[in-house]
């Protein structure tokens, strides 16, 4: 697109950024206990690297792919790196979000924060960023797996940085366990893809045409392996545990970027390495995606911890992304390239949007957490008065995530729904009939996310403070503020300039579907996928007219009537003894969802009898999958390991005997 004429363009730029991040991390080890070094130098420098990476990625979006062989790795097995349009898009997302989160971290990290020393956290943080960049440019299975595992490990250390709490250690354990199960699945997927050639470079896989059976095996393994990382149902259990356990900037990065690397991996394997998706893969991805979307949003509605709520909302958004990807595969499988381009553009757009609004909200919860030391929704409230900057930025993020126009969440949902509406005409009659039902599920998930966001925002920022000490809450500092404002403006800009974003996405859709959105028929003002007669939307015009109408209403009321206003205690139907505990608690606000979607939950609780002098009310809504799937598997594993432990005697002579028996057995076989 643009030839930057920079010394580090294309893949070199991405590798340089990753190297710079690693160098910054290592620099922190010079003085691991020094908070000032991290705050004054390393995190700001990390933000600059992120920004540079975003610029490089934007420059490479339209450029031809560039590749490089690194002098690293095993002998005869060097690392291959390659930057094409898809990598460039995800690197852009990584760079932009990393820059904002690093700026935020400057203000966020404190002395008393966590068990791990600040330098060590800084190292893990920058290695985490670098490994995500390397995942996105890796061009052979070996390099990919090394980067992927580095990402898993560094994020594990970040999640458990406050390791003094048992539940955080437990969350970290669950995370690393599932991450490795996913990694095994991805490894097997690459094994299926090399099809006996023994060549694990992506170049070779791209040129190889695996048989349809093996390709399907590879797809299913990739869906499982990357699905664990993305958090799709039923592989999501680590996500609502690990996100709240991590420090807020890390939760933001994990949710906004790390989940997207899994989406990237899925796209890389299916659209690029296999190259010829079958239509029923799309049906599977669509079903799994929609199940995750509905599951995520229903569970988000009943959470009472603000970071868990956001984590479940991430499951919902990833579900929508996977559903959009499934639609892409469905269209590709039937050879309908133009529609595949639309679905792919909607999917990628939603990835970008989710990165912005989810990191914004996670960072906002970080500020709330620092100001109040409180994560539970039931002890917050009224913070719009004490923390106006955070509150107004979070309002933009909440409205965006609820898919309200004219913000960014609406645009990607609009595109996705358009893609669904165009499906009639698929050659497969049964699928043709199912897709409208899928559109209904998307609409339901979108409407429920509005419910969730009203709950989140209303309980945290509006109403009366539920605890007395919230009156001492302070607004975020200048570093945190500027990061929040940057992310909020990102949400607004991505919403108001959809045609620019779609134009930037064109090289990606062109490469992987062979089509662009002819779309841009509408010019810079309108977006019109497929045909302006079918549907068009202009965020700018829409927002401008809405703003004019609101202003006109306000000005005319001001002009014609007196502006008298008096402050008084709240009325509340004349009830004078109002207190903060009479507001809806988080559980109370989630109650309708609990009733409507009752069978989805495993509800346990006790209600006090009316005569109880000290009434206690308790109710928990848990994930049924935990009891149906995970605990039985865990019990089975425990039983097997108990059998194995019979061999473990703890006496050296017994072990020597085992060695002897093994040798004998080997001799018998090999001879």
């Amino acid at each position, binding site marked *: 697109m643009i030839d930057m004429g920079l010394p580090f363009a294309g893949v070199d730029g991405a590798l340089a950024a990753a190297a710079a991040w690693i160098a910054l991390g290592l620099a922190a080890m010079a003085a691991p206990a020094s908070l000032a070094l991290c705050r004054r130098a390393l995190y700001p420098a990390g933000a600059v690297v992120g920004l540079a990476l975003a610029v490089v990625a934007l420059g490479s979006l339209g450029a031809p792919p560039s590749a490089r062989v690194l002098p690293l790795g095993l002998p005869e097995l060097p690392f291959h790196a390659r930057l094409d349009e898809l990598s460039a898009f995800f690197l852009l997302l990584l760079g932009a979000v990393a820059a904002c989160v690093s700026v935020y971290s400057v203000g966020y990290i404190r002395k008393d924060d966590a068990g791990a020393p600040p330098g060590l956290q800084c190292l893990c943080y920058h290695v985490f960023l670098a490994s995500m960049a390397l995942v996105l440019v890796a061009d052979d299975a070996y390099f990919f797996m090394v980067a992927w595992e580095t990402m898993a490990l560094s994020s594990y250390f970040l999640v458990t940085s406050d390791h003094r709490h048992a539940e955080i250690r437990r969350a970290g354990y669950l995370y690393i366990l599932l991450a490795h199960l996913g990694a095994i699945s991805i490894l097997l997927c690459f094994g299926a893809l090399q099809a006996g050639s023994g060549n694990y470079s992506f170049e070779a896989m791209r040129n190889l045409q695996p048989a349809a059976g093996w390709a399907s095996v590879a797809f299913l393994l990739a869906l499982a392996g990357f699905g664990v990382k993305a958090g799709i149902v039923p592989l999501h259990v680590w996500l609502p545990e690990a996100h709240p356990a991590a420090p807020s900037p890390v939760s933001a990065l994990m949710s906004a970027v790390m989940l997207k690397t899994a989406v990237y991996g899925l796209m890389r394997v299916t659209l690029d390495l296999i190259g010829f998706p079958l239509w029923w893969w799309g049906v599977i991805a669509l079903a799994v995606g929609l199940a995750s979307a509905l599951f995520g949003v229903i569970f988000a509605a009943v959470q009472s911890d603000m970071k868990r709520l956001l984590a479940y909302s991430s499951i919902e958004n990833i579900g929508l992304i996977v559903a959009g990807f499934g639609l892409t595969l469905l269209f590709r499988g039937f050879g309908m390239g133009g529609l595949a381009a639309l679905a792919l553009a909607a999917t990628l757009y939603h990835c970008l949007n989710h990165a912005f609004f989810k990191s914004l909200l996670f960072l906002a919860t970080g500020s709330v957490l620092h100001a109040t030391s409180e994560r539970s929704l039931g002890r917050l*409230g*009224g913070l*719009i*008065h004490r923390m106006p900057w955070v509150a107004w930025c979070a309002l933009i993020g909440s*409205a965006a995530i609820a898919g309200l*126009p004219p913000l960014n969440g*609406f645009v990607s949902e*609009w595109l996705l*729904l358009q893609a669904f*509406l165009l499906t009639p005409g698929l050659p497969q009659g049964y699928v043709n*009939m199912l897709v*409208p039902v899928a*559109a*209904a599920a998307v*609409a*339901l998930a*979108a*409407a429920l996310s*509005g*419910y969730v*966001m*009203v709950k989140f925002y*209303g309980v945290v920022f*509006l*109403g*009366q403070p539920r605890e007395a000490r919230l009156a001492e809450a302070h607004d975020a500092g200048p570093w945190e503020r500027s990061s929040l404002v940057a992310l909020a403006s990102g949400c607004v800009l991505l919403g108001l300039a959809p045609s620019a974003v779609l134009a930037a996405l064109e090289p990606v859709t062109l490469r992987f579907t062979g089509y662009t959105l002819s779309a841009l028929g509408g010019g810079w003002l*309108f977006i019109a996928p497929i045909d302006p*007669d079918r*549907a068009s*939307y*202009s965020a700018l*015009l*829409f927002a401008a*007219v*809405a703003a004019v*109408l609101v202003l*006109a*209403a306000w000005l005319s*009321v001001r002009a*014609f009537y007196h502006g*008298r*206003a*008096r*402050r*008084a*205690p*709240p*009325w*509340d*139907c004349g009830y004078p003894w*109002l207190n903060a505990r*009479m*507001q*809806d608690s988080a559980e*109370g*606000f989630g*109650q*309708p*969802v609990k*009733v409507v979607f009752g069978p989805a939950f495993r509800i346990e609780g006790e209600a006090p009898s009316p005569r109880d002098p000290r009434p206690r009310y308790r109710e928990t809504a848990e994930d049924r999958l935990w009891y149906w799937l995970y605990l039985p598997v865990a019990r089975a594993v425990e039983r097997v390991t108990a059998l194995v432990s019979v061999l473990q005697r703890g006496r050296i002579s017994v072990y020597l005997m085992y060695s002897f028996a093994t040798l004998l057995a080997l001799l018998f076989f090999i001879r």
Partner: protein
Amino acid sequence: MSASGFIAQLTELLIAVVLAPLLTGWVNQCRAWLQNRSAPGLLQPYRMLAKLFEKEVVLADNASPLFRAAPYLVFGCLALAAAIVPTLGTDLPLNPAADAIALVGLLALARFFIALAGMDIGTAFGSLGARREMMVGFLAEPALLMVLFTASLISHSTSLTTIVETLAHREFVIYPSMAFAGVAFTMVSLAENARIPVDNPATHLELTMIHEAMVLEYSGRHLAMIEWAASLKLFVYSCIGLALFLPFGVAAGGDWLGLVLAAPALVAKLAVGGAALALIEMLSAKMRIFRAPEFLGTAFMLAVLAMLVHVLLEK
């Protein structure tokens, strides 16, 4: 963008804003007649608005700027919604900017702000109303979207004017899917406009309030804007209903004569629609709040069925 289109757009907006309270007054009048009461005057809602505008605003001590801005935001959103539904002509300059999905988004935006405003003071009623309103919303919004999608699938477009043109000006066809969609739409609009059997606009009985509980803390000009916006919402839903199910009489393109004739046609259709609404309200009983999800779930299922019927039968 033609001059007639621009004028039609402005007229539509003005008619909506000016006539919306009249529609509310008409429905109240019909209801009173059906209940064998002597009816308030047709202009009663205007008198109400004038009175409220004159009154002083009493703000709760802890009201945030969001609380004060919400009435105007909600009013602006609903006025824009009224402008993009084609009621008079189909040559509207705003049409390419916002389609059926954007219309649903706009209604959701208004609901988002009013629910937040309800939670802002932190009273028991406010958050109760906000919670119930959002519960109605999360079931009604996808149902409305599915109704609009059924019409979009018939006309191969989500643009509202194309939908109206297809349904009104091309050859006359009976679509069985639109029958399902019609029932679903009626149920959704009853719920969304806080009407019996889901909510009752005339009571302040705690156990059953939805909309009124949410706006309990508003007074003076803020309450006037909220009431006006509520009338506009009823007007918008009526117009969506007319556009989808009775689109006859809407001028095609920039036809001047058609535009002039469309206005009385609209008033006549609204009068019939308002009377029908009053009749439905009279014939049904208010149901318990926990029955509302069933009611709306039925509407959602009917709307999805409408889409399936279209895909299966009307290819």
